[in-house]
């Protein structure tokens, strides 16, 4: 009886998990399916199969008449913005993570909390706060507003990933280098940095993704000439929604997925969230 009951329980739990993950991934699956539909309406199931919404995307790329212009510019803005936020937060974040590991001082936990605060801080408030500040001092170019906003968002993720790598690093390696006459800087550059390489790379990819996917903070800081991709998509959602937007979204999702898979290889996502993966 018990073994039958147990097996039944396992089957029930297993089917629930399958259903749950189907549900969890369903919006992305639906976008994927819709992008291949033939008709212009967003119906389910999609009426027929075609690739012409991807061809339509090509019209957007060429800024064809009657379409919302600026797709390519927006995509470049997003890529470039992500790269800037990534570069900045990697340099700054690795220093902070290193400092947090090396030095114990009063208020250590509090300082760490402060650096991680933006992860959970209401993004609307980050957005409007920076917006009001920048309109008060004027003359701040829009690229600088966006980079600073995104730097605030991405920094904590680099600190977490680099910190997780540093925690696994054996201090004896660094001590050995110092005993052999390397100074602090040489040790950091030749021993510490190379040993946490995977943590740094995955932190960098993390930072890029967070920046690339951010809408809320971007929404309050963008300007006419600096319009990252999520804002472009938002403006299109306000107009006519047709499957070409689904085609674009599919490409964005695929790009994100590739970056995520690379990250997952470097540091299992589960390990970062404190599970034993």
């Amino acid at each position, binding site marked *: 009886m018990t073994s039958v009951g147990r097996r039944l329980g396992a089957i029930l739990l297993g089917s629930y998990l399958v259903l749950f993950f189907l549900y969890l991934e369903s919006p992305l699956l639906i976008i994927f399916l819709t992008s291949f539909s033939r008709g212009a309406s967003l119906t389910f199931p999609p009426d027929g199969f075609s690739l012409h919404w991807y061809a339509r995307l090509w019209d957007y790329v060429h800024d064809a008449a009657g379409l919302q212009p600026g797709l390519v510019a927006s995509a470049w803005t997003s890529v470039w913005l992500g790269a800037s936020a990534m570069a900045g937060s990697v340099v700054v974040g690795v220093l902070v993570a290193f400092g947090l590991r090396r030095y114990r001082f009063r208020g250590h936990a509090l300082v760490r909390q402060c650096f991680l605060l933006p992860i959970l801080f209401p*993004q609307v*408030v980050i957005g409007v706060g920076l*917006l009001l*500040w920048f309109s008060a001092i004027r003359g701040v170019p829009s690229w600088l507003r966006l980079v*600073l906003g995104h730097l605030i968002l991405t920094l904590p993720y680099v600190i977490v990933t680099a910190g997780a790598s540093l925690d696994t690093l054996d201090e004896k390696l660094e001590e050995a280098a110092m005993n052999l006459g390397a100074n602090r800087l040489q040790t950091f550059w030749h021993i510490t940095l190379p040993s946490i390489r995977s943590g740094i790379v995955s932190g960098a990819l993390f930072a890029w993704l967070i920046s690339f996917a951010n*809408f809320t903070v971007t929404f309050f800081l963008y300007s006419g000439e600096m319009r990252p991709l999520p804002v472009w998509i938002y403006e299109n959602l306000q107009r006519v929604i047709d499957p070409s937007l689904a085609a674009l979204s599919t490409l964005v999702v695929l790009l994100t997925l590739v970056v995520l898979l690379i990250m997952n290889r470097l540091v299992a996502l589960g390990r970062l*969230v404190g599970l034993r993966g």
Partner: protein
Amino acid sequence: MSLAGVSAPPAPPRSRGGAGAHRTGRRLPWGGVLFLPGALVIGSLLVACLILFRYSLNAWDPVRTMVTSWTGANYLALVRDPVVRRAFIETLRIGVTVTLVCLVLGYPVAYGISRSRKRALLMFLLVAPLLMDALLRSFGWLVMLGHHGLVNVLLTGLGVWASPKRLIYTPLSVIIEMIHELIPFMVLPIASVLERIDPTLHEAAMNLRAGPVRAFWFITLPLSLPGVLAGTLLTFALAMSAFVAPLILGGGNVLTMTILIQQQMLTTLNWPLGSAESIALVLVVLAVLTAYGRQARRIARGSA
């Protein structure tokens, strides 16, 4: 998304004596330089908040917009203004609903993940949607909940509904999207607690002739409550500050605190009131997050 606080592994014990000692503690004045660039970045968030606080004490005039002064009128308005009150109640209502549904739907998922052998894969599937553009997820729901979308087609096809219902641009669609968006934050803390429960406890209960249901009810469930509390607080805090779901799926019909702030700042240009609303939102969210942080640390120490 919160990767950090969910349950950061505690730092490994450090050697106090010997070769390591000369690097600890004493040199912090110089080591502080390491934190300087980071402090500038996080400091700018602080400056932004201070500016919001200062503006929240200013007065507002429809013609001259913001007028410099020192008044508490905006904070009084938070309590008295019927629109603000309605937005606050709506935010609470959505937040509580979303959190409860996440708990009910998420607990079995956390249990399944903690027992599964494919944990790494499931973790990837759980966390991956979080790193997708929030706008795309909302777009997906817009398509699924549309008049001819999956949900309407399925439910009318099965005969549950006689005709398709209007789902998008209603509070219900906002709630549906937010459950989807936030459920991983409920699952993660619960799974990380469940996974640490010694399985022999469950077996011991079974050996003492408690059925699987009784063993779960009296052993596993009580031991997992710290994770439930952490997940509930985290999910609720994030639900209070959600913006994309009410913006896209609310379509102007759902007024939450975040949407109200957006309108005050960008449309009515009532910066003082918008600032007061922002400060109030931050205080509420930080209060919940502090409780969550305490709970998460307690779990990490294993004393919960």
